[in-house]
């Protein structure tokens, strides 16, 4: 029986984020927390394959108690079990510490019930680092397929999966042995609209809550602020771009407009420097 696992994160809905102009930090008040959208698609894909192959789907997250809601959403999509790794000791963890916490949690789950594939969203929309998935895969020694857009096959018997990943120049079809890890693009699966009984089940579901001591005894030097070498020196909003200048073809004629545009570009110091480099 296949056992799929998805590692997820609850994030602030960054579609309506505001930055405090005085402190430069994000205003969290009134910003709804959601399941990271890439993670949601990863869960949807895992749920599809669980349904297709018959088996089990476990989700895991590290976060505050309120992250329970994100896990309930995973249950709604078809997960069977959810683990919330939650402890004040984890507060301030960067991607290095977070990948340690999640890797050890997944290792624990795997010991109880062998995990065949670990799914991640390609990145979280709040930090956009795309580091936690690869970090966990390395810690667990799993082959990793990043930017997965489609799973063509998962063959438990012969121990391989066929995964299509997006690259800058096109697509690659990767055949990987199991167990394996992947980070998912949204294209990997559509979010299902759950049946009402499944939604009700998820609303009543309480995830297992794991602390920093039980059932995994974490090394305190590798978690929280102490385990996080990353420092945020400064954050803020980027300056708005200058609006583009319009050069009218009607007024200048086509040739004139092109000439004017080229002239303006060449007089721009950064463009000129770029051309210099090319030559």
């Amino acid at each position, binding site marked *: 029986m296949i056992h799929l696992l998805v590692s997820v994160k609850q994030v602030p809905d960054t579609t309506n984020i*505001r930055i405090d102009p005085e402190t430069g930090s994000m205003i969290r008040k*009134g910003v*709804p927390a959601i399941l990271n959208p890439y993670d949601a698609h990863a869960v949807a894909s895992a749920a599809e394959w669980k349904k297709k192959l018959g088996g089990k789907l476990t989700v895991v997250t590290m976060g505050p108690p309120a992250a329970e809601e994100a896990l309930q959403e995973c249950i709604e999509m078809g997960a069977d079990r959810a683990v919330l790794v939650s402890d004040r000791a984890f507060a301030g963890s960067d991607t290095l510490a977070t990948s340690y916490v999640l890797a050890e949690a997944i290792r624990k789950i795997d010991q109880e019930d062998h995990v065949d594939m670990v799914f991640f969203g390609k990145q979280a929309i709040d930090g956009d680092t795309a580091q936690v998935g690869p970090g966990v895969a390395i810690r667990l020694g799993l082959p990793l397929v990043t930017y997965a857009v489609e799973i063509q096959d998962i063959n438990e018997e012969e121990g391989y999966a066929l995964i299509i990943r997006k690259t800058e120049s096109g697509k690659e079809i990767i055949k990987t042995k199991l167990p394996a890890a992947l980070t998912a693009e949204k294209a990997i699966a559509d979010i299902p609209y759950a*049946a*009402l*009984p*499944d*939604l*009700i089940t998820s609303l009543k579901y309480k995830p297992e809550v794991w602390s920093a001591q039980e059932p995994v005894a974490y090394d305190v030097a590798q978690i929280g602020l102490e385990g996080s070498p990353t420092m945020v020196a400064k954050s803020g909003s980027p300056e708005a771009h200058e609006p583009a200048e319009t050069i009218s073809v009607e007024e200048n004629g086509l040739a004139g407009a092109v000439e004017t545009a080229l002239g303006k570009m060449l007089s721009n110091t950064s463009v000129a420097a770029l051309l210099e480099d090319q030559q």
Partner: protein
Amino acid sequence: MSKDKLQYDVIVVGAGMAGSTAAAIAAREGLNVAVIERGVKPGSKNYFGGALYTHALVDIYPDFFDRKPPLERPVTETGFWFLSDDGLVKATVQGGVVNSDPIDAYVALRAEFDPWWAEQAVAEGAFIIPKTLVEDFLYEDGKVVGVKTDRPEGDVYAPVVIVCEGVNNLLTQKLGLIDHDLKISKTALAVKQMISIPAKDINARLGLPDNNHGMAISVMGDVSMGLAGLGFLYTAKGALSLGVGVTLDALQESGIKPYELLQRYLEHPAIAPLIKDGQMMEYGAHLIPEGGWTTMPRLYTDGVLVAGDAASMVNALHWEGTNMAITAGKQAGLTAVEAHKKGDFSAKSLSTYQDKLSDLFVLQDMKQYRKFSAFLKNHPQFMDIYPTFINDALGMFFTGFGKPKRKLYKDILRSLTSRRPLFKAIGDIIAFGRSIIGI
């Protein structure tokens, strides 16, 4: 997956003020209550000016204030502001009757308050099902026995359904409790901005002593560009809420865009300094059913009760709506409890809901103010001529230095009569009086 049908004692449609109240009351009496809400969470589809009224809140939870509700500021100053195109007369009241304990009204944000209000219902035992739209009813022998949602396997059963679906009352229409869709002459569109301003600046600009003082202001005059409608100003802790509501037919006939109205209001010389250097946090709009009695559906049928905006429970002049919704929600909840005790969910059994509301301000006021929305539409002079006259009259009175005062009074009178003959003005005032007394 369970093949058992989903069965509850009561279904409430919509987790707004009416819905969460009805659910709390029914659950408190031991009934198994499901609240079905289309939004991601309660409050995500709700919006108002606005202030909540203490009497209704403490009626449901006597220890309301001990529960640490998410409120912004108490309303310690309230009244009218009359805008001319470049002037402002303030007629507000503070202290005295307004300085009650607790204060009668509190500014709140629905996106924060509604989830909290729903949590109180959950604590009473109600179960909230979000992200699910109720599309229709389930019938047996012609009687409602539940609802059909938009989800697969989405039928939910209960012998009584309390419909608190809000202003766009499609389910109420589907039941035939009202024979028409929203009337554009009886429905207002309110647009508002929440503008973030440091609390100390709000206090300084509005003359409030500290963050525990706040304002709820109705703004008449230039704000609505002569259309049937009103503006408003409410003080949150670190933000001002400013908006304008006008009827849909007025918008349609004038061709004025809602955002133009709001922008013009915010740029008014008396308003702009209040929001200087503020940051817009929120821009939103919502429909308000202002028809009152004239657009009220029948409130019950076999297996169904209707409460809140869905039943046009709004008093446009007194800015009442949430308190009517809470009060009606409570009575609907109590009626459902009684129906369960009797084991009778017929229209006749549920008709006690209407009797209860008739004994309360809800239906009494709606009946009394039944002519008000028509009055407003037929007397646009209250939106431009009179507010401007009040500005001119007071301005002239207080600057009539070195003028024979007999001439001053003549000038003041002329500033009215040049816009509206005296007998018509007197007629207007009588009409206003009739519209609010209800004769």
